[in-house]
């Protein structure tokens, strides 16, 4: 499965902000960390703001912070702000879809969609932060 760049950037931003709940981070800090253009990130943060996942804090020391519930917000919630997760949601007709082979291929692709949705929907931001910690520890052990 490959997520669009905006979705990945949104996930990185939400995770970065949620991992530092007592801080406000500037868009340029986040852009620098993930090596993306500030313009693209600004658009992503604006969309996340509309979805009430992040909010901008104005004034000196201001920046962005995560304002969702990390135990409730799932990866699916974030991704769906930017792209449809399933082919069914994406809509559109592809040549061959209405043939017998097209119909049976749709059954197989639907199975993959169902698993992808269940996976993204069952992993919260909090769970992702725990996973990140585990990966960090594993990497540290392997490089020690």
């Amino acid at each position: 499965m490959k997520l669009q760049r905006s979705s990945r950037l949104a996930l990185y931003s939400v995770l970065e902000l949620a991992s530092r709940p007592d801080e406000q981070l500037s868009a340029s800090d986040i852009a620098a960390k993930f090596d993306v253009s500030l313009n693209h990130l600004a658009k992503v943060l604006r969309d996340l703001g509309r979805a009430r996942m992040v909010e901008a804090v104005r004034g000196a020391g201001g920046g962005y912070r995560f304002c969702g519930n990390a135990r409730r917000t799932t990866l699916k919630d974030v991704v769906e702000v930017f792209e449809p997760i399933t082919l069914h949601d994406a809509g559109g007709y592809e040549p061959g879809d209405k043939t017998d082979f097209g119909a049976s291929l749709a059954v197989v692709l639907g199975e993959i969609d169902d698993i992808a949705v269940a996976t993204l929907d069952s992993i919260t931001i909090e769970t992702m932060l725990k996973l990140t910690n585990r990966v960090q520890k594993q990497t540290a052990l392997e490089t020690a």
Partner: protein
Amino acid sequence: MANINEFHEESGITVRNACDGDLLRIIALDGQISGINKQEYWQESFRRFSGTKDGRHFLVAEKDGHIAGFIVGEIRAWEFGSPPGGWVFSLTVDPDTRLGGVATIMFDTICRCFKQAGVDKVHTMIDRSNITVMSFFRSQGMMAGSSIPLEIDLSEREESS
């Protein structure tokens, strides 16, 4: 042999082996959540898993004198080709006590029992639509395993043969 009776001071939750007096509450709690009365199933599960049988665990969580949840599992060897490992078959928590750490304490306990018995992996299987329970297991660090469950409606199989 696992004789479990542990009080967790911070949460006020006791995890212990299920006993005869718990069965009706277990059936009711499962019925409340699943919407299906599975009396015979639970009676049979209770007979097989309760007590202190080697590798089998039927644990309940008690809070303020009430059963707040239960967990059932056992160690199985070479199930679907997997080396000996713990399997959790059922995890149920009273909706009124959710987010109170009941499931985590029960899962910690059964994982410890499995580990003490010498296995190093725990498996479970959940319906894709059961996001609440799947999220819980994910929060405990569980990831998709190497097995993929497959199934077929028998009527469909008869039609295609």
